């Protein structure tokens, strides 16, 4: 298992319940070990298994939820 972490910019969140639904949904994706979404910094820090997910797939998953996400290192 090779873990790495990425921090993605997330636009469009305005309240805690948006944060929660993202953490629940993205957190339940296969290969996602840990996710922390920050409303203030408008970003999500995700630790994931590189063989199952990638920054792009995670960014797509966030876009799929209707939020805008940007790959920011």
């Amino acid at each position, binding site marked *: 298992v090779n873990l790495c972490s990425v921090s993605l910019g997330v636009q469009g969140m*305005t*309240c805690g*319940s*948006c944060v929660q639904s993202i953490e629940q*949904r993205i957190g339940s994706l296969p290969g996602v070990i840990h996710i922390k979404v920050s409303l203030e910094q408008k970003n999500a820090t995700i630790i994931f298994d590189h063989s199952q997910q990638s920054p792009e797939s995670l960014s797509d998953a966030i876009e*799929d939820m*209707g939020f805008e996400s940007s790959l920011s290192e």
Partner: protein
Amino acid sequence: MTKHEFEVAMTCEGCSGAVTRILNKVEGVKFEIDLPKKLVWIESDKDVNFLKETLEKCGKEVKYNGTK
């Protein structure tokens, strides 16, 4: 086109913004969102399950209230 009414547990503009962006990605769909009443009306020929699953992508609970 039939007009469907869904109840979506949206609590703020962030959630209704997410639903708006999700529905914008779907062609052949006209929609209206009433955030205070947590209602989403969709005019489309697509079947209800497809519409419901699309709405559920935003991570919120979705109930189908029937056609209007």
